[in-house]
């Protein structure tokens, strides 16, 4: 289906309403985990976190979840990583959600309990690792990201697809100067095996509402500053559109100028969209950025497709201004997740013959990978200590061996590295146990002759 082909597209507004309601439920949980004050959350129309978790659990259980489960899992990992204590205090609410997610992953009935425990432990590991990035002063030893920690343990029980394992990652810590304003720079990125042509719908804002948990259908903007539509043959166009984002009880309407370009309509090596705010609104001072879908031609992702979404945003709305991570927590991340799991393009890792998510790797392969990753983590740790030891030796042999500052810095780095190693060792140990258990299980539980996965 091509962008703009309205005749072949069905759109269910009722389902879209349900999806947006669930988007606001996810947003409610993310606002809580982001530490947004309860009064602000109430003013935004968000339910409390317990209710949000129960609502999502019911939706998963009753097969009425309209948003990608990746959005729910992402929210849980954010919760565990940001507010470990609050997360642990809600075991009674969270476990039914985990059980529903595990059951929908087609885990055999006899294994559901163990699988829920494993996913819970994965989230506990994330909660325990809170702040592991902090000792960034130890060079060349980047900390495992919470999502990576989570998938190392939970990929099996949840039957995560490769697209889910390679979840888009969001950075909202850049500060962008825009005239007199300091806007928040938000950048989300992922890599996929889908081609740029298959993801062209992601760069067409007229289609975002088809999948979004926050966007309503855009309409032409004809107000102040509007310019006539412009087409630049063969494949470029510019449109002034009124974007409509629904965030619980708040509707944000923003006039934006979208500029779309594609390198080749048949098999593009890139598709691109720029957007810029036409005029300020009462809620937003700055809103502009770009989407880029591009075939990678060099480096470790060569041959794959890189998807990147940039947004410079600054809210005038006093409630949203108090939530600096709102774009990563809600509509912007949702848009990119939709593209990653296939709603706005080809679903990269779905077995089309059976219509179920395929495993990213076999269980044996995961065991091998877990061992490799544990070995790599150990090697990285040894390298970090070697660097520290070298610096220590150089300090002793140098001109000022008694330089306290340097020794204090080196000691602090060593402590930080030791703490990181403890956390990494625990993660690797759990991942190895998980992978080993699954590997052993796959050897002992051979399917009956003539019985396929579909029979389960």
């Amino acid at each position: 289906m091509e962008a703009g082909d309205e005749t072949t597209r069905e759109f269910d507004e009722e389902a879209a309403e349900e999806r947006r309601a669930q988007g606001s439920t996810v947003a409610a949980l993310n606002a809580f985990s982001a530490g947004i004050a309860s009064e602000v959350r109430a003013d935004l129309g968000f339910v409390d976190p317990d209710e949000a978790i129960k609502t999502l659990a019911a939706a998963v259980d009753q097969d009425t979840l309209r948003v990608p489960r990746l959005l729910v899992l992402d929210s849980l990992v954010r919760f565990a990583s940001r507010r470990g204590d609050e997360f642990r205090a809600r075991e009674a609410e969270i476990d039914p959600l985990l059980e529903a997610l595990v059951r929908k992953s087609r885990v055999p009935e006899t294994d559901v309990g163990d699988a829920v425990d494993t996913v819970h432990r994965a989230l506990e590991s994330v909660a325990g690792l809170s702040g592991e990035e902090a000792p960034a002063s130890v060079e060349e030893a980047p900390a495992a990201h919470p999502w990576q920690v989570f998938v190392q343990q939970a990929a099996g029980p949840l039957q995560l697809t490769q697209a889910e394992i390679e979840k888009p990652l969001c950075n909202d810590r850049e500060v962008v100067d825009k005239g007199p304003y300091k806007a928040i720079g938000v950048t989300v990125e992922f890599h996929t095996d889908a081609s740029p042509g298959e993801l062209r719908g992601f760069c067409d804002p007229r289609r975002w509402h088809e999948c979004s948990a926050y966007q309503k259908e855009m309409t032409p903007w004809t107000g102040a500053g509007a310019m006539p539509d412009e087409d630049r043959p063969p494949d470029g166009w510019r449109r002034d559109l009124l974007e409509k984002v629904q965030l619980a009880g708040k509707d944000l309407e923003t006039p934006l100028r979208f500029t779309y370009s594609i390198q080749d309509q048949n098999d593009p090596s890139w598709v691109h969209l720029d957007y810029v705010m036409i005029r300020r609104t009462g809620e937003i001072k700055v809103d502009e950025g770009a989407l880029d879908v591009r075939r990678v031609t060099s480096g470790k992702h060569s041959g794959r497709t890189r998807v990147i979404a940039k947004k410079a945003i600054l809210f005038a709305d006093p409630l949203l201004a108090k939530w600096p991570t709102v774009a990563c927590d809600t509509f912007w991340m949702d848009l990119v997740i939709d593209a990653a799991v296939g709603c706005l393009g080809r679903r990269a890792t779905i077995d089309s013959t059976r219509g179920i998510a395929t495993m990213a790797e076999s269980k044996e392969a995961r065991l091998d990978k877990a061992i490799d990753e544990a070995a790599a983590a150990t090697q990285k740790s040894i390298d970090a200590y070697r660097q520290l030891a070298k610096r220590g030796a150089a300090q002793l042999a140098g001109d000022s061996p008694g330089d306290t500052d340097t020794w204090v810095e080196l000691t602090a780095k060593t402590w930080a590295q030791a703490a990181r190693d403890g956390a990494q060792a625990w993660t690797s140990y759990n991942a190895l146990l998980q992978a080993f258990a699954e590997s052993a299980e796959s050897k002992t539980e051979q399917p009956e002759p003539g019985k396929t996965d579909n029979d389960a």
Partner: protein
Amino acid sequence: MANTLDDLVGAAVRTWATMARTWIEAANAVLVGWLDVADAESVLTGFNEEVVLLPRQQAATALHPGPFTDWDQNQLPLAALTVEPAQVNAGEATEVHVVVQPPDGTASGTYTGSVYDPTGACLLKGVGVYVVGDKPPP
């Protein structure tokens, strides 16, 4: 004698106190950093800068940005563009940063251009940089 001993003890205590304070400050710095968790998931940045991988060159090569233009054919002044590093070594692929410092009156958008060697040979084609300008849309 007592004075000398007092001085020695005093100096030792002061040294120890200085050390301890430094330790505590360092530990606090680590702890504060630890607690003030940046829950950003990646470090990727995307504005006024683009990072591209330059394949290995046969010889050390100086890098020069060419003209960068947007969809409306607005062109950034060359003085607003920087390529870091300005020169790459022979035989190794290098991450190259194309950085833009937009002058006043720049229109926001993606500006696309290339990076060249001193002879004018194109080394990197179609590099797109999203530039945040202060010029309002027409």
